[in-house]
């Protein structure tokens, strides 16, 4: 029996798991997908918001303000790339300058002190590619960019290193509750736990409904994005938001922590929680609206498009806490923006909430907050490369030519805790296939490495989910050879 069972290995579930792994508790995470971070966490704007945006008094405002400053420490411990490049909200008219002032006031109320209003000249100095009609900006120097899936992989890996059990491909289909415990039933197994934490993203209402008639509803709100080549990475220096209007929150333009340029998203409410289709109309909408920020965004350097779902609660705010109707069931639901920025603080809060259930629980002496350092070939010095290749020649073999990823890095993330078992899992961890050729060249080689390291047939290698096989069998002549 588990003390705590977490449903959902997104950034929220992983943050909670890692916090709980500090204590002598039996904790597990279940996820329905074949990898961690494989839903909302993998497809969003990848921004750490400064915290001026949420309405004062809301949980969003509280956790954003608490969470954002925690990233420096966490990313240091877990060796995750994170940059505080600052953010700008651009006003395109005198009218919008007033909106900036109220955003500023709101930020101060939320306890965000490091924000300033910049005049046109200062704004253009920070972002020379802005459109001429930009009048000024709200500047938050602490705003940051991060890779949300690398963060979540790292959080999970560290949690597992500290004793948490991770179960992938476990879709919860029912939850039973008796006096003492919850029985969490997946399509494969039954798990028992004293406490259940519901971090199921867009499915959080479905999960909650398994224990009680739901009193909240989650709407999947789709957003679509363009990813541009690193050649376009210097187009923006900061996270550039457009001043929100009553009609729209606007489209953002930002460098990513790895040096690409990201443009998006739109917002489209759906009924289908699995609809991640890109659509021409919506992509055009993003492209057209981005022109408001700058007319010369180099869209011809697009290397990929994607779509993600936000988990939008009908309560208008994060839903965090123990269910009043079902004791021991903790909802962490409706974690839409600024969910990523809030995740560390939510993790902390839910940990405290659960610790109260046990008396005198102390932090484990052997808790290790550090993740084993990750080798990133393209950040190494020549001497470091030479020394490393002497010890392990696979770090001298470049597999992904666009992102300069070595075989050594790929082998490492396969064998780490919460390791990669699919092509996309490799891509999310080390970026092989994330570049301009989109895996055209390295895909087959990564498949060979996966097949060799995990001792499976080439044609069993999957792109992402268990049914997403890439190959359908051997060719005629290679069959004859075998």
């Amino acid at each position, binding site marked *: 029996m588990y003390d705590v069972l977490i449903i959902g290995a997104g950034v929220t579930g992983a943050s909670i798991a890692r916090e709980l792994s500090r204590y002598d508790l039996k904790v597990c995470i279940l996820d329905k997908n074949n990898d961690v971070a494989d839903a909302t966490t993998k497809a969003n704007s990848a921004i750490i918001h400064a915290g001026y945006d949420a309405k004062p008094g809301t949980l969003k405002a509280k956790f954003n303000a608490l969470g954002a400053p925690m990233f420096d420490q966490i990313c240091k411990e877990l060796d995750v790339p994170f940059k505080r490049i600052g953010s700008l909200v651009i006003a395109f008219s005198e009218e919008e300058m007033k909106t900036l002032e109220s955003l500023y006031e709101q930020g101060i109320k939320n306890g965000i002190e490091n924000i300033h209003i910049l005049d046109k000249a200062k704004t253009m100095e920070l972002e020379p590619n802005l459109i001429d009609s930009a009048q000024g900006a709200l500047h938050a120097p602490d705003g940051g960019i991060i890779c949300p899936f690398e963060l979540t992989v790292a959080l999970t890996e560290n949690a597992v290193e500290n004793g948490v059990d991770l179960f992938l491909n476990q879709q919860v289909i029912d939850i039973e509750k008796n006096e003492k415990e919850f029985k969490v039933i997946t399509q494969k197994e039954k798990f028992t736990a004293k406490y259940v934490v519901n971090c199921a993203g867009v499915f959080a209402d479905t999960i909650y409904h398994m224990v009680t008639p739901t009193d909240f509803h989650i709407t999947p709100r789709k957003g679509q994005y*363009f*990813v541009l080549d690193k050649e376009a990475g210097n187009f923006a220096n900061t996270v550039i938001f457009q001043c929100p209007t009553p009609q729209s929150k606007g489209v953002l333009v930002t460098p990513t922590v790895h040096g690409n340029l990201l443009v998006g998203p739109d917002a489209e409410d759906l009924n289908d929680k*699995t609809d*991640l*289709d*890109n*659509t*021409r109309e919506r*992509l055009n909408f993003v492209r057209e609206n981005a022109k408001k920020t700058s007319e010369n965004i180099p869209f011809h350097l*697009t*290397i*990929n*498009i*994607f779509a993600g779902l936000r988990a939008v609660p009908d309560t208008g705010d994060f839903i965090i806490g123990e269910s009043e109707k079902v004791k021991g069931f903790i909802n962490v639901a409706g974690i839409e923006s600024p969910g990523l920025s809030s995740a560390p603080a939510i993790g902390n809060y839910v940990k405290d909430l659960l610790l109260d259930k046990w008396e005198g629980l102390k932090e484990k002496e052997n808790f290790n907050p550090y993740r084993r350092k990750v080798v990133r070939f393209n950040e190494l010095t*020549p*001497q470091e*490369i*030479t020394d490393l*290749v*002497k010890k392990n*020649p*696979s*770090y*001298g*073999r*470049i597999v992904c*030519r666009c992102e*300069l990823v070595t075989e050594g890095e790929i082998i490492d993330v396969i064998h780490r805790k919460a390791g990669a078992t699919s092509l996309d899992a490799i891509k999310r961890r080390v970026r092989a296939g994330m570049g*301009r*050729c*989109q*895996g*055209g*060249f390295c*895909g*087959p080689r990564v*498949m*060979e490495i996966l097949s060799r390291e995990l001792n499976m047939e*080439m*044609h069993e290698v*999957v*792109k*992402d*989910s*268990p*049914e*997403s*096989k*890439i*190959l*359908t*069998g*051997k*060719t*005629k*002549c*290679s069959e004859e*050879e075998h």
Partner: protein
Amino acid sequence: MRDYDIIVVGGGPAGLAAAIEAKKNGVDSILILEREIELGGILQQCIHHGFGLHVFNQELTGPEYAENFINETKELGIEYKTDTMVLDVTDDKTVVFVNAVDGYQTLKAKSVVLAMGCRENTRGAIGIPGSRPSGVLTAGAAQRLINIEGYMVGRQAVIMGTGDIGLIMARRLTLEGASVKAVMSRRTYPAGLMRNVVQCLYDYNIPMMLQHTVTKIHGKERVEGVTIVSLDENRKPIPGSEQYMECDTLLLSVGLIPENELSRKAGVTMDKNSNGPFVNESRETNVEGIFACGNVLHVHDVVDFVTEESRTAGRAAAAYVLDRAPASASTISVTPGKDINYIVPHTIDPEKVEEEIELMFRVSELFDDSRIVVKKDGETVKSKKKARMYPGEMEMIKIKSDILEGSQNSNLTVEVEEVPDKNE
């Protein structure tokens, strides 16, 4: 590690031919750096025949064609390193590479030949809407999986784009027992060579759908089908023409892009039209002593022409090393005129042209019974009638040296002149 006179980046057909030619022209100290585990480049996965008609007067398979050059490279004792990635090339011809044996190395060369080839355009770059399941591959990636790794990529395929690799793969999939439901071109004619259309599609009864494209990919885990649509003459979708086509695989053959990331690092200036470096008649870039040849310079249709071009570059690199030949002082500029997409070379030093020089270019549309017209400073100096020209086939025209003599600072243009219909 010692320095070299010439470092060739890329050991495919372009790099090998350039290295061999440089060696034959008197340079001994040559190093080829190849990122794959064997020499030969993309030819190694092109197991079909049809290579070598111009260079060897016989039809060879890709690996056979490559083998001729690999053998010669070895016989001539040219040094090479495979499984080796070049990380940087600078304008002072310093080459940085890494591999599992030597680690991180910095070498100096007197001359560098860029021969990195090209890559395929992707689903992401052209932004095909829909879901993101497995079963969507570029034709070249599928070719590698089938021909090198020995695995099938699907049973029921749709091919978007009619580039040569897509056409070749339509036949290859069919031979492996898969059904190819359609090969689609956005234009009124295919993008690849007509001979490939005949030998790969017509001969196997594979339907070619002109003026069609894929507008949506279906399937959450594996591809389940695609929505296709008819296009009007402006290549805009015709409303109501959408149809669903079931398939488990979508191959993309939607263009090739020269891989010039290293060229840019070296300070080489690019031509937006060819997506490759600006070069002179010797295939020398704006950076003295740095040459480019093969598909990194412009995408060729037939490898034989890559070989010829690369020999030019190799010869010139050798001359540069041996004579420290000065860069062309005054030159003729060559620019694309009406209906021409690009021309290589971009400049010609008439002093360097012995008997004649060949201009390589592609036209922008399909032209029947038209003329290629070469003009010098506005005056026609040569014209050639062509029964058919289309962008899939690289066109070439030779200009005699006497036409260029004494023409420093002139401008040459090439254009298409449509011959009026005889019946009009």
